[in-house]
């Protein structure tokens, strides 16, 4: 019964579109986080001095601190962006797919 439902959903071009679009979106965001984070870790490991430079002459606030604060905020903004798109655009599409599979069934 549910296997037949899954079969119909899989056959719906909208399902393929959803999977492709959401997958690309999620992996892009994941790649951004991984690149920035591990890039930062490598910078810490190989070039700590450059992160220890002050952002302004006479200031004691370093690049490392500013970049980290930026990452905290930026990663959270990405999280919010994903939730927004997934909970509206992608969920609407998902509902359509399930409903169409139901209609076909009746």
């Amino acid at each position: 019964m549910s296997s037949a439902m899954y079969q119909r959903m899989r056959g719906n071009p909208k399902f393929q579109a959803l999977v492709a679009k959401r997958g690309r979106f999620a992996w892009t965001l994941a790649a951004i986080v991984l690149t920035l984070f591990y890039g930062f870790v490598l910078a810490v490991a190989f070039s700590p001095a450059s992160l220890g430079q002050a952002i302004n002459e006479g200031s004691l606030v370093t690049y490392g601190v500013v970049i980290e604060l930026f990452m905290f905020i930026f990663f959270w903004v990405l999280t919010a962006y994903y939730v927004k798109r997934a909970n509206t655009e992608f969920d609407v599409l998902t509902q359509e797919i399930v409903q169409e599979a139901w209609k076909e069934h009746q």
Partner: protein
Amino acid sequence: MHRLTTLFTRLNLGLGLFACSAIAWAGPALDGTTEKQATNWYAISMFCLFVALTMGITYWASGRTKSTADFYTAGGGITGFQNGLAIAGDYMSAATLLGLTAMVYGQGFDGYLYMMAFFAGWPLILFLMAERLRNLGKFTFSDITAYRLDQGKVRTMAAISSLTVVCFYLIAQMVGAGQLIKLLFGLDYNIAIFAVGILMMVYVTFGGMVATTWVQIIKACMLLCGGTLVMILAFSQFGFSFEELMSKATAVHKLGPKLMTPGGLLADPVTAISLCMGLMFGTAGLPHILMRFFTVTDAKEARKSVLFASGFVAYFFNVIFIMGLAAIIIVGQNPEFFEGNTIGAKLIGGGNMVAMHLSKAVGGNMLLGFLAAVAFATILAVVSGLALAGASAVSHDLYARVIKKGEASASDEIRVSKIATICLGFIAIGLGILFEKQNVAFMVGLAFGIAAAANFPVLILSMYWKGLTTRGALFGGYSGLVSAVMFVLLSKSVWVDVLGNKAAIFPYTQPALFAMPIAFLMAFIFSKSDASARAKEEIDAFEDQYVRAQTGYGAATASNH
């Protein structure tokens, strides 16, 4: 044997475990002695208030905990916001508050870096896992790994690695709790251990996930409020100017201008990457964290949970950063907080007391009492979450699915989980007393390592890779478990520091970078080479699982109340 015992005693780093936070970091130890302090009545009365409140909630929750779904996942009816707070409550342990403040106080930038590593796993959990977890799982994460594979074998494996993670994490939390309570409340170590163990048993057995969730939520609110209050009071002494705070801190700190430069913490690239992988993927493999994804109504709420949880965690880490920096001046320049009233001598109560001293300095005994109560509540909440996850592995996976093959009645299953909780409680008390005088820092590292190497690879492969078969999952899971344990055992933190050997056999302290590829590789090789008919069926079953993972059709729904 005698030699071993003396070594253990000598190596007792007391609260070192909090400084070492969630991993076995072998860097400069922020160790502290754990002599009893004068009884703080503010702390005790505030803590009693917390216990009374949570007991009331447990009583209320016990009336609402009837089905297995109520017990394991609060009926799946928790909202995204509530669950976000509860996840933050589960994730931010006393180590976060005390250990990380101490780390910023001692090492400046490195402490901040460490917090980033703790945080960065959350966005990834959202992008790659949250939705599929909710759509495929019901009560435990092995619902997902065993979805299309051999129930008995895969669940047994998942339960073994879950229980291993839970036990190591519990020991670390219990020993830490005992030491902390002795310090903060002036209670005897054994009394403290029993208090934590028994309260935990009451919350979980009577209130199940409903009570556990509310304990987490209340504790998260207390932690966020307490931290924010201390931060504001401390920051106000610098006119809320970050620049001024920095210049004053740099001027007095022993690291001087190097305070805000990455230091020795992650100097070795291999250790740095391995540590970050362990924290990132370990988070995504901790059974008590994964379980929280099944308490919400649907994938939509699961996503929101991560949004709120990561927001609270990120906010709180930045609060801690400012607290640590302010403490460099407010605590570090006040002789009152040092032994013998000499600045630069040992901090009273040990390195982990920085946050506590800061609260006393800016808010007097009352704020100190509040923060101490928060720390105790924090331990209780984390321990309860762990016990519930461990008990579910026993009752839902081992008892209901492996032993009874899905034929167990709901009331039997709940009874088994309650018995399992009580057993886990006594095991935790026993181990807590047994390990009192030992350095248990490596155990949290081990818990994260096992979660990253045994739970995470099989879980992510079962959701993403069609080709995974039972044989591959078993080899992947068990090899990840064994290799993570072996690497930690042979590393400096156990082989040298605990067992007293001269040199470590495995040169790095962090297992993730090495154990994770082993698990993935084994899962891949033994799935690919599996030509059995059963393997073919399992691969074919992926298609339906994939549609359910993507759409949530057929997912476990919230039960009605």
